[in-house]
């Protein structure tokens, strides 16, 4: 091999960068975030159910929020009829955060894990819906 010092240095840099996920995870026994559902509002529910099904909420809650926002801000409608027929007031603070009043242990925990940072809280209050 010619110029073996340079080649070796280059290969070591390449391997170090390519295996970053492996060595950065060394000694890491991270588990999926535990979502805390233990809030006063949820504890009062007979049936522990979100606005829509759990799978739908997991994947599409941002779409639902967007739909709500547009309905409220553009069309002035405030009542949402869920697919199971229940009705909800379309509001981030007064509906979502009333049940999920533990935003830090719920929304934030999940978002930190997934690396998303919604920018709602510069305008909407984080405070519990039923203050």
């Amino acid at each position, binding site marked *: 091999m010619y110029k073996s010092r340079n080649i070796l240095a280059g290969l070591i840099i390449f391997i170090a960068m390519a295996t970053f996920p492996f060595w950065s*995870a060394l000694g890491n026994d*991270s588990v*999926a975030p535990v979502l805390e559902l233990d809030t006063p509002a949820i504890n009062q529910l007979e049936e522990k159910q979100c606005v829509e099904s759990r799978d739908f909420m997991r*994947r599409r809650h941002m779409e639902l929020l967007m739909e709500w926002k547009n309905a409220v801000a553009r069309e002035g409608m405030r009542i949402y009829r869920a697919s199971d027929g229940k009705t909800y007031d379309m509001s981030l603070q007064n509906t979502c955060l009333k049940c999920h009043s533990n935003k830090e242990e719920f929304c934030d925990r999940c978002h930190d894990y997934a690396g998303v940072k919604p*920018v709602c809280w510069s305008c909407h209050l984080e405070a519990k819906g039923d203050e």
Partner: protein
Amino acid sequence: MGMGLSALLVIALVLLAFLGVQVAGLQFLFGVVIPYAAFFIFLAGVVYRIVKWAQSPVPFRIPTTCGQQKSLPWIKSNKIDNPASTAGVIARMALEVLFFRSLFRNVRAELKDGPKIVYTWEKWLWLAGLLFHWSMLLVIIRHLRFFADPIPSFVKVISSVDGFFEIGLQHIYVSGIILLLAVTYLFIRRVAIPQVRYISLLSDYFPLLVIFTLALTGILMRYFMRENVVAVKQLALGLATFNPTVPEGISVLFYIHLFLVSVLFAYFPFSKLVHMGGIFLSPTRNLPNDSRARRHINPWNYPVEVHSYEEYEDEFRQVMKAVGIPVEKE
């Protein structure tokens, strides 16, 4: 021909992942075994290619002169385009790798008004190539959010800059969309320009189509079908910690995405894509042009027996004198 075949290949790969996961339920194979195998082939293959290249001697400088060579002190030389020192070579290489400097010199040659050749401005290939590579890098760095917990701060910073724009309430990652557009342009360019199409082969179309499909499935997952990101991260972290798990609730679209990544990585060392490593070994870029200052000895030179004129004359002096041939030494 190459185009049709590579399109068929990509469709077959997508179908394979779809059937394997949806019908046969081979989540573990497509989510764990194949990604590990592909990553191993990628690492070992790239190392093998580089070591193999490093075994060819490069005895002579191969200057591509885009500037004045260093010679006499009062002749101004171009230190980056015709470097004589290692620092100059590093600068030239960095500009090449980061900004595709030699591609920037690209022009289009056309015959105009009979046999007159005209060179015209052509920076689209450079622009699309640069956008393509940079956005691919950003996409890959941003994907590290799936592989590390807590997410490293450089990934967060890059994601928040990249996700500056929002549509509705959601952040849009510009690099993912630019990647899709740029790869589409690069593909259309190959098909639409007859000269380029003439020299295009399966090995040109195939990687473009794989990356196109990758970006497409990624964008579908993020903005339309909505992947269960938490479950995906569990799978990815499981791979990174050698503790593989296959969580419930991941859609088949993700397995198609992951399978195409695996195919791309496994194919990488055996294809043109190794230019990622090869660029650093290209002699016209990594050699200082110092032929006038240093003697470069060819390593495979064998000792040559020489018979110099002095020796010749010593041997035949008497005879030469006898027939009247002039000699240098009496």
